[in-house]
């Protein structure tokens, strides 16, 4: 088997705790936003990273692109450790690693036309000169399915779906190999969401792109991911091939998440597992298994409250961090 394009090992990001009023008194405990996350993505495939708000999934995205500096860990991109690169090398590498953000309005400069937005990275990375730049912009618009008439439009003149297409075109402008998609369709309506998901799948096929696809919607991830990793309180609690993970989740959190997704079919049997309580604060995670206070597993016991479970292989390529993960949990087929 070939080496993965992206290999993340033991990624950690702790944010320092808030200080009390005017910096007096003791600092609050650090927020362990990402706490030892490892995964690998093969070239041309998609890893779906799912979790609820505060699980640390966006922090993973930002640290592995070094938009924020991680506390510890290693990120290998095509064999090079991203976290050890100097400024110049990092800048060159940025060409290969791009990101598409959730909010297509907030992430586009309102004072730049679509053309100017797409030109900028081409000029900065010297990918074309003179007339070739304009030609390249036209090609990009065409690739993302935007009519050439929109080249002179400002972001506020575009719909949400069109803006997201501009965001994707901007990421593509530097011919990257790897794109982090951070909730790229969460802000879009269902019919437009489908258009953008299809576009991302099409571009992946055409350019052999590698995606880290971050989303809170498990149904969306199911449509695009080859592998899925589930995060809870800064840790991956389960990871595996999409097919296996959706069919037979081994971690009770994955099972609960899957069962909580509403199914657009009134005749579907309701087997919803309703979790009690909220996600605890990552500044003060529960001892033992971080999921134990909300865990619906019938066999939950003292061990869960004291001993944190390690990620162990439970089926071919599927790992889960639960003391009972060896036996499958029953959920919706």
């Amino acid at each position: 088997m070939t080496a993965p394009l992206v290999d993340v090992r033991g990624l950690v990001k702790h944010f320092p705790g808030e200080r009390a009023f005017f910096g007096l008194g003791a600092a609050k405990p650090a927020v362990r936003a990402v706490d030892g996350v490892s995964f690998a993505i093969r070239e041309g495939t998609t890893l779906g990273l799912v979790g609820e708000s505060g699980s640390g999934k966006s922090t993973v995205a930002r640290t592995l692109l070094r938009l924020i500096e991680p506390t510890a860990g290693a990120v290998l991109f095509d064999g090079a450790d991203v976290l050890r690169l100097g400024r110049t090398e990092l800048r060159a590498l940025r060409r290969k690693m791009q990101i598409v953000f959730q909010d297509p309005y907030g992430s586009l400069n309102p004072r730049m036309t679509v053309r100017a937005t797409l030109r900028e990275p081409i000029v900065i990375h010297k990918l074309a000169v003179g007339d070739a730049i304009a030609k390249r912009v036209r090609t990009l618009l065409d690739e993302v399915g935007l009519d050439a008439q929109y080249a002179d439009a400002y972001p506020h003149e575009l719909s949400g779906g069109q803006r997201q297409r501009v965001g994707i075109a901007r990421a593509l402008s530097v011919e990257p190999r790897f794109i982090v998609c951070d909730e790229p369709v969460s802000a879009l309506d269902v019919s437009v969401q489908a258009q953008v998901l299809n576009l991302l799948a099409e571009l992946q096929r055409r350019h052999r792109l590698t995606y880290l696809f971050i989303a809170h919607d498990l149904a969306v991830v199911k449509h695009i991911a080859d592998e899925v990793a589930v995060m809870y309180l800064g840790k991956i609690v389960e990871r595996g091939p999409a097919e296996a993970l959706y069919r037979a989740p081994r971690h009770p959190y994955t099972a609960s998440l899957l069962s909580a997704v509403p199914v657009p079919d009134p005749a579907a049997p309701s087997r919803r597992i309703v979790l009690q309580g909220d996600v605890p604060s990552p500044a003060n995670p529960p001892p033992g298994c971080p999921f134990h206070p909300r865990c619906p597993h019938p066999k939950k016991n003292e061990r869960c409250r004291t001993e944190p479970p390690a990620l162990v292989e439970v089926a071919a390529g599927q790992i889960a961090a639960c003391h009972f993960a060896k036996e499958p949990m029953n959920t919706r087929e």
Partner: protein
Amino acid sequence: MTEPLLRVRDLKTYFVTEHGSGTARAVDGVSFEVYPGETLGLVGESGCGKTVTSLSILRLIPEPPGHIRPGSFIEFEGRNLLTLAPRELRAIRGNRIAMIFQEPMTSLNPVFTVGDQIAEAAIVHQGLSRRRARERAVEMLKLVGIPDPAERVDHYPHQMSGGMRQRVMIAMALVCHPKLLIADEPTTALDVTIQAQILELLDRLQRDLGMAVMLITHDLGVVAGTADRVVVMYAGEVVEQAATGELFARPLHPYTEGLMASVPRIDTRVSQVRGRLHSIPGQVPAATAWPAGCRFHPRCPYAWDRCRQEAPPPLDAGAGEPGAHTVRCWLVTEPARRSAPA
């Protein structure tokens, strides 16, 4: 047949746009009923007019720029809400009809405790004393499943999580035991596990209190699991309405059909769903310039000449009683065209 609790007839809510460049016909001739004790799902994408419809019912539309056109009719418990004096209307708002919103943080007042905010409606509408109203607030917090209600009653909204705040919103809305609860995207801002909690709570409260719920959402999954009947809106109009089971089994409007096909589904096998997802081409047109004829025709795979020229009225789809399943689509008159998209 029972009398409807709420009857909306030919509701038209228009907005004058800023540059005077035209009138946005956000809600344009909407009619539907809500029966006592039922859950009506109002479904549609952004800009279809579902929120403006719900705000119009409580006359919460800012005027100007908005105005409800003459000829519109909103009857609740036998009275036309559109002709009531402000005082009479205030006696209904928050009392007989209550509303909860999508964003629980911005709809709660950050400088008052949640207890004060829940108690306010009880003091205003039911004339309870402060002490009694506070007790009532604690009871309500307990009813919506907030742990340690006696302590939580003195907390401020920022001290609570998103799910808790939405519970507080529900407690506020239900303090006067309304007959109708309008819930506008009540779970959209919440995580899926918290959404499951809130939907379960709403379901339990509706059964215990015997109220009707008008659930506004863009999520067909949420509707399928909770609504008795569904109204689908597109471009300011009701394009289809039917009982939930009937609608999902037999979506007749091409928009409903397309919407259902474009929802990514969790209950299918990965091997079946990889690859292309159905999508509706184009986007929702602007409310200042709805297309002529059928408003969906530019995006419709079946459209023919008639659709471009003539706007279809709500047509009976012929299942069950008249009006049980209506569709604003000419395909009803020429069903053969469905098998051969243009």
